[in-house]
């Protein structure tokens, strides 16, 4: 028996399924009045440490919630538990080999655990990874990237996908600048080349530098909603 092939035109965006779920998440956030931040960085850039400083500063003033994404362990969530805020951990480990990013469906799986009506700002701490999380919208209002000065000046050029998609870049660990050869001006130039005009805040989770400015930026988000 002779079988011939027929061509079928499909024209379907590969990320449509994720984007559809992301929009559904966004509707849930909007209905609850929750402003949502997708926080992304390399592993070890200081996302959790900055969150600790942020919660110390804003707890009692704003109702914050955190969705923690990690391949494995609840170490980050354990660190934040002392703040007694709505907090949910999503492990991506059940995914194929442990997903290196959060996607819209994983975030949705954690939302049932969060009292969104009582959360003004939900911070989604994505899996530490400089490439993959950038591809997957999860329903966020904005993307905040944490970048530490120990990572070198050239990364915006090497990993433009994430740097291009950030609405704000927190340049962290600036207390270390005096010990490093890191050229801050060059880094900011590289960043501006891939994401012209993107706002940056120099921060140190260790000394607290820049945390006020970052928290001010967070407050402004709510005023604009």
């Amino acid at each position, binding site marked *: 028996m002779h*079988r*011939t*092939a*027929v*061509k*079928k*035109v*499909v*024209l*379907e*965006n*590969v*990320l449509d*399924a*994720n984007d559809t779920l992301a929009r559904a998440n966004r509707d849930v956030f909007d209905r609850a009045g929750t402003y949502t931040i997708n926080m992304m960085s390399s592993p070890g850039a200081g996302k959790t440490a900055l969150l600790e400083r942020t919660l110390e500063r804003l707890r009692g003033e704003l109702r914050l919630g955190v969705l923690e994404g990690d391949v494995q362990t609840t170490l980050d969530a354990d660190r934040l538990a002392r703040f007694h805020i709505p907090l949910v951990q999503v492990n991506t480990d059940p995914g*194929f*080999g442990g*997903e*290196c*990013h959060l*996607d819209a469906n994983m975030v949705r799986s954690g939302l049932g655990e969060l009292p969104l009506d009582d959360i003004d700002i939900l911070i989604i701490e994505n899996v530490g990874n400089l*490439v*993959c999380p950038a*591809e*997957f919208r999860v329903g966020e209002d904005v993307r905040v990237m944490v970048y530490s000065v120990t990572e070198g000046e050239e990364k915006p*050029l*090497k*990993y*433009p*996908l994430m740097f291009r998609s950030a609405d704000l870049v927190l340049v962290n660990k600036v207390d270390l600048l005096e010990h490093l050869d890191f050229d801050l001006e060059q880094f900011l130039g*590289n960043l*501006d*080349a*891939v994401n*012209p005009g993107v706002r940056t805040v120099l921060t140190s989770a260790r000394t607290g530098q820049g945390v006020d400015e970052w928290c001010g930026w967070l407050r402004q988000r709510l005023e604009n909603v």
Partner: protein
Amino acid sequence: MHELSIAESVVRIASRQADGRRVTKVEMKVGYLRQVVPSALAFGFGLLAEGTPVEGAELEMEQVPAEGRCRRCGVVSGLGSFPLQCGGCGGFDLEILKGEELMVESLELEEA
């Protein structure tokens, strides 16, 4: 490895669109700005297609070079490398016209 998630999605789309037939080829467009590693995507695709109507299908990826229109001088030029820069005036403020594709274009299906 965002290629694995992308491969999963490609297999899902192709399986759904297969109308119960076997898929022999999947044609996709992959934009340069997506930072997809073709060999990683092909590997994931082969693995995840097992046991589906897409098993054994060829994955053909057409790479789409990036192209942008400069917001300063209006010139449309190819964007071959990072940083993305206007080929006319060297400006960085660009409207991306091509290079962000990630699309299943068509399938080849075995006739029933």
